[in-house]
């Protein structure tokens, strides 16, 4: 789903509602086909005692395919074509402002732990979007992370991903 959105260019007239609708329907169709193939692989039929394991996946995939074809055709040939812009580049940029840092944040969590990553993530947002002063940024982002640490690791004993800093502190 993601790469379709990144194909968005400024002033691209084709990225209307019905274009996105059609592309999404096409992707759903492919998902349906994949499910049917996997269902077929493990047996989509009827054994002596009832349905085989692939019986439901195969049929779920088939219904997905049929429904997506209907949505696809209706989008292309239907009477009410929605030619409005799906999302303008300006507005989509704002979505990317959240999405890209979030991807980096999840990546960082894997290496430096969720608490340190959260400090950087929240702080970065406050700096880039909110133009806060560094003092406020540090107070709020460190404060929130510390509060989460206290709540999860100490109060509820739920272990979250930790990195080198936490092991330095003995956790």
């Amino acid at each position: 789903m993601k790469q379709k959105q990144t194909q968005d260019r400024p002033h691209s007239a084709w990225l209307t509602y019905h274009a996105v609708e059609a592309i999404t329907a096409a992707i759903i169709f492919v998902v349906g086909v994949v499910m049917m193939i996997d269902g077929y692989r493990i047996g989509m039929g009827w054994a002596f005692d009832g349905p085989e394991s692939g019986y439901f996946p195969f049929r779920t995939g088939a219904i997905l395919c049929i429904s997506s074809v209907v949505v696809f055709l209706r989008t292309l040939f239907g009477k009410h074509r929605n030619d409005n812009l799906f999302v303008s580049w300006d507005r989509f940029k704002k979505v990317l402002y959240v999405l890209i840092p979030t991807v980096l944040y999840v990546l960082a969590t894997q290496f430096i732990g969720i608490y340190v990553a959260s400090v950087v993530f929240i702080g970065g947002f406050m700096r880039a979007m909110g133009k806060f002063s560094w003092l406020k940024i540090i107070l709020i982002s460190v404060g929130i992370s510390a509060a989460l640490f206290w709540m999860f690791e100490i109060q509820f004993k739920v272990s979250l991903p930790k990195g080198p800093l936490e092991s330095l502190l003995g956790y």
Partner: protein
Amino acid sequence: MEDLSNLFHGFAVIFSWYNLGMMAIGLILGVIVGVLPGLGGPNGVAILLPLTFTMNPTSAIVMLSCIYWGSLFAGAITSILFNIPGESHSVATTFDGYPLAQQGRAGEALTASFTGSFVGAFFSVVLITFLAPLVAKFALKFGPPEFFAVYFLTFASFIGTGRDPFKTMIALMIGFGLAQIGMDSVSGQLRLTFGSSELLRGIDFLIAVIGLFGLGEILLSMEEGLKFDGKEAKINVKVVWHTWKKLPKYWVTLLRSSAIGAWMGITPGGATSASFMGYGIAKRFSKNGHKFGTGKLEGVLAPETAAHASGCAALLPMMALGIPGSATAAVLLGGLMIWGLQPGPLLFIEQKDFVWGLIASMYLSNIVGLLIVLTTVPLFAAILRIPFSIIAPVIVVVCAIGAYSVNNTMFNIWAMLVLGVIGYLFKKLDYPLAPLVLALVLGDRAEVAFRQAILGSQGAMSIFFSNMLVSGIMIFGLLLLFWPAIDLGWSKVRGTRPHEGRKTD
């Protein structure tokens, strides 16, 4: 009057400082979750569910259900003060709520909406108290074929009442597909894992809820560039009393909306459609109907009462049959399984403390909830004045933590991220998300019921039409499944345009 003595027993169960504390925490968290963009009933409960893994089930359900009630109360706050519905079920509340706030009558509108919510909830809880045990008793006779038929009816009713049957169908099938990932519980074969060991465990429904509703919503609010500059929430004893004096004359609206909401909650119509129906019908039947939209108290009461009634009533089929009536109820049902309870009619026999404790807590928490929201609205409205540049990353962090703690794997956070993008896309394209979540939670159970039924009949499909009960449910389900086609055919025959389908969440 066995029910009443059970209910008193339930009150005895929850009257401990610990449970009352959990109730208060749940309600306050629920209100916070309800006013924040990107968080709502379903994902608020989903994120906090992992924290309750070690709690005793009764305290856990009391806290989590209170989050649900809190979020139902809170949807109105943003609708009235900011003209931004905090939850999809409070969209209809903006129609008359915001005009009232513009006229400087925000306090009245808020009091009316909270009180309406309370009345709706109370109606549904009374209904649950007396109806749920009967339904459960009746359902004890159900075997696998009957259960499959009820699941089928649930799924079919989404198609029958949804706006777009094909998109609803796609949402349902994607939910089933996600449920099928992992090990087949009957044969032990691996399905749709494509050799990935991460997928062995399947995609947990909590991840889907957090991603689709939480992250997806944040992306959407980012794109829409939310700006909260709302009206002041002035609310005091005088305003409350003044408003309460006016309410009795709207008793017809209150009762009607409660009934609509309760019905939409028991059938999986959802709070959103209930609130729209409540508003629409009040508008049609009120003698002030033509003034709706300009700031009438009735226009706030009608949708809020229906929404909260439907939210509460959604727990009736969840407790009695193991079939949730809303997305949030679906998450609560998932919680039951995690705490080691087997959802279904046997709950009423084997887990009396749990069931009646929950019902008793619903009475109490809606009263406490009403007091909390009435007294603390300005505080919660202030939360929305916190800049979005702080709130947005914090919500993302909370979603990530929630996703990770489901079963302590990084894979879940990545899955949540992907589902968040899908949620954003689906919301913009009007694919309904509630059927997806329900299909994901119930998919496995429906399939197991089907296969057990077939095993019992040695492979004959006729088992689903073997007696009056099961064939009745199946036929009703089939009727709902093909309802859009029947409706279309009927209006073609009569030469009129098919009416616009109802709105569902």
